[in-house]
């Protein structure tokens, strides 16, 4: 693999026009990845999902070279018709379209991120991999006091041209004071057996609001790693919703730093799995200042021989007095072969805090099924009704009514 990485990297550099300084930094990131390789179960974070083995088993040899010169056609059919929206269309890791037609043009500033500002000293080898092979990174800056009128939908498309390839992508958002944005991240995969590695950075200044909804529902055999970093200043709010169902293997990681007082983070997620899918959500909320709040609710419905993993950590710094942290994960196992693993973790260094977590897993409640059947429902409908109710709990947490309706339709929960 090492040789392949090096030749692919040289090919990538020679076909793109990075400055010498940029190449040097990308090389450094590559060295970092070469040193650590793909994470395996030996690392605590990857204990339940050994991505090194999963890639080996399902993809085999990966190609790291991705030609960003290729222009891809976009089929209008995929766009969501129900609501008016701004769009960013990404095809095979390349930004094809940036369209903020509903917004005041001077309120949104789109630039290419200076690679020098990136944090290249990474413990996370997949971020190093991303840093070394991703194309130039767009930075979307929302100016002070501006709220986007319409939601932004990020279409992440892969087409059938891609297979056995590693696709790396990064996007940055800066939300200035009192600004707000609503994002739907919609995956549309028409490719098979790729390793897709995404990184999203969000910087929220004072009073800023971020609502981020991630939808992965189309069945495909890709392996995905998605890392979101959210840094929050005073009084800012972030809301993250993850619907994780379509791809064969997905690991969603959300890392939230609550750096200012009264900032709060909400992370809610659904795993709806069948066949032999293997999905993981890992959340880490770092309470670094006093009077911060975080809330996580993760629910899984696991069928066939699929596997759901939730790792959640609430970290409370000794400075972060009056922290309010809550975390709940629940799972329903529908089949003998299904598996649920959880590691809800608390790491607390301050005494005046209110932190708790709960985790429950098991089968559908027999009494509830009996109750519904005695009211005339057949067993299948009764089960469906219970599962719907179980998952709806999470969807109802979405604070934007319009998007909530859209997502309910999209994933067929009513």
């Amino acid at each position, binding site marked *: 693999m090492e040789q392949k990485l090096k030749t692919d990297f040289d090919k990538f550099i020679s076909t793109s026009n990075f400055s010498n300084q940029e190449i040097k930094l990308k090389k450094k990131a590559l060295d970092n990845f070469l040193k650590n390789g793909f994470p395996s179960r030996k690392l605590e974070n990857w204990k339940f999902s050994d991505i090194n083995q999963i890639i080996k088993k399902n993809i085999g040899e990966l190609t790291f070279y991705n030609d960003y010169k290729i222009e891809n056609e976009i089929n209008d059919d995929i766009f969501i018709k129900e609501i008016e929206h701004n769009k960013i269309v990404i095809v095979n890791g390349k930004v094809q379209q940036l369209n903020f037609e509903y917004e005041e043009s001077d309120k949104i500033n789109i630039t290419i991120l200076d690679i020098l500002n990136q944090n290249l000293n990474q413990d996370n080898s997949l971020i190093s991999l991303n840093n070394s092979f991703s194309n130039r990174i767009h930075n979307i800056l929302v100016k002070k006091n501006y709220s986007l009128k319409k939601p932004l939908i990020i279409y992440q498309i892969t087409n059938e041209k891609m297979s056995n390839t590693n696709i790396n992508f990064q996007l940055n958002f800066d939300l200035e004071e009192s600004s707000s944005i609503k994002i739907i991240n919609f995956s549309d995969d028409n490719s098979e057996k790729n390793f897709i590695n995404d990184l999203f950075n969000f910087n929220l200044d004072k009073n800023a609001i971020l609502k981020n909804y991630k939808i992965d529902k189309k069945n495909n055999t890709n392996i995905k790693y998605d890392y979101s970093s959210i840094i929050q200043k005073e009084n800012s709010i972030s809301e993250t919703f993850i619907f994780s169902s379509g791809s064969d293997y997905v690991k969603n990681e959300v890392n939230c730093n609550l750096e200012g007082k009264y900032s709060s983070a909400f992370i809610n997620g659904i795993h709806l799995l069948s066949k032999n899918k293997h999905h993981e959500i890992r959340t880490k909320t770092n309470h670094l200042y006093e009077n911060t709040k975080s809330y996580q609710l993760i629910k899984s419905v696991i069928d066939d021989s699929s596997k759901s993993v939730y790792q959640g950590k609430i970290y409370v710094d000794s400075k972060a007095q009056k922290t309010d942290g809550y975390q709940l994960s629940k799972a329903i196992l529908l089949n003998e072969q299904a598996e649920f693993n959880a590691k809800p973790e608390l790491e607390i260094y301050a005494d005046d805090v209110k932190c708790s977590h709960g985790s429950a897993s*098991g089968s559908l409640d027999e009494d509830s099924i009996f109750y519904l059947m005695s009211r005339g429902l057949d067993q299948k409908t009764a089960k469906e009704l219970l599962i719907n109710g179980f998952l709806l709990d999470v969807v109802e947490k979405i604070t934007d009514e319009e998007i909530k309706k859209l997502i309910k339709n999209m994933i067929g929960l009513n």
Partner: protein
Amino acid sequence: MRDKQIEDLKDYKYGFSTDIESFKAPKGLNEEVIRFISNIKKEPNWLLQWRLKAFERFKVLKEPDWQKPKYPKIDYQDLYYYSAPKSFKEKPKNLEDLDPKLLETYKKLGIPLQEQKRLNGIAVDAVFDSVSVATTFKDTLTEKGIIFCSISEAIQKHPDLVKKYLGSVIPITDHFFATLNSAVFTDGSFVYIPPNVKCPMELSTYFRINASDTGQFERTLIIADKGSYVSYLEGCTAPMRDENQLHAANVELIALDDAEIKYSTVQNWYPGDKDGKGGIYNFVTKRGLCKGKNSKISWTQVETGSAITWKYPSCILKGDNSIGEFYSIAITNNHQKADTGTKMIHLGKNTKSKIISKGISAGKSDMTYRGLVDISKNASYSTNYTQCDSLLMGNKCGAHTVPYIKNKNSNSNIAHEATTSKISEDQLHYCQQRGLNQEEAVGLIVNGFCKEVLQQLPMEFAVEAQKLVGISLEGSVG
């Protein structure tokens, strides 16, 4: 003089087998030392081979480093692996020679004078005849067919039982410290309860003759045969001093069909001084196997001592309908550190487990609950309930919860809850208003917090443990 003698013995390979009463085995860990230990204890050959096999394994194992409390590297070649019991000459002669702080604590715990002496190895006068107490105690047990002796004695007198069960729960191929123990263990307790016998009294190391100085590598083996019941107490509430810093004991419990073992521990080893200097490293491996149907193993622990406590008393629920329980109170103060919890491994059908853990950290201490609940594919209709609560006092300490939950069976349920909080001002205010001083108030509230676990302890133990909880937290408030 002594050092010189030992130095001399090092050169002379086999010389140290003579005059063992006053000598330690030379420093270091090698095959010779293991042969020496085995030889001195007149062990059968199979046990020596067993030890050597463990040592072979130990050589390839790496010391784990994933735990939260880090400690300076231990040089395993710089330890004595065998030392003969001390003669009275070296021990303090009078209570006046002891640390006044220790005496003060004894007073608070209400430990009788004679017992205080005994705890410190001071020769007791004839009036207090601990031996006769123990003898009557032994007669009752023999009548019922219960074997309760040191493991060295059991190796001589009941080799079949030892051979059958030793290492059946903690094999010699286990982790680093357990394997080290298998190679060099010196002594410990052995209990066998015959079928359908209910042990009439609480068994305690405290009553075993020659129980003192079992050393740092203790090995305990308890077997409850079909339909039997035993309650075993380890340790005592009185503070224990020991110059060995590392303690790596192994405790194995085996419960056959319909048997029940209740194992209670009160651990109060020397925790080091206020600045975190010194103190015991308590790295114990405790594991129980519910081998038979309808068997039950229950662990209760009150951990207040040691500089570092690192242990996970576990239950392997192999028999159908077996039950595992774990009740724990862990208190850390000053610079103490604890990483403790349990493992419940459900293998049999219809198995149940319950975990109640209460952690209290004060001062600059650090406390971690780490637990595993694993329900395997075949363990249908199993349930687990876990509750772990932490209480923090001050913002210089830490409290962490790291549970691992694995459910591979759709008919089984796991529920886990954890909370972290502090003593509320209102509660404190209320108690103080009623005339308690701040420390008493804290003691009362903490006892309430721990009540669920304290209730599990045998009566006399519970009263002492309650006082201990209060004493451990002295100086942590205000």
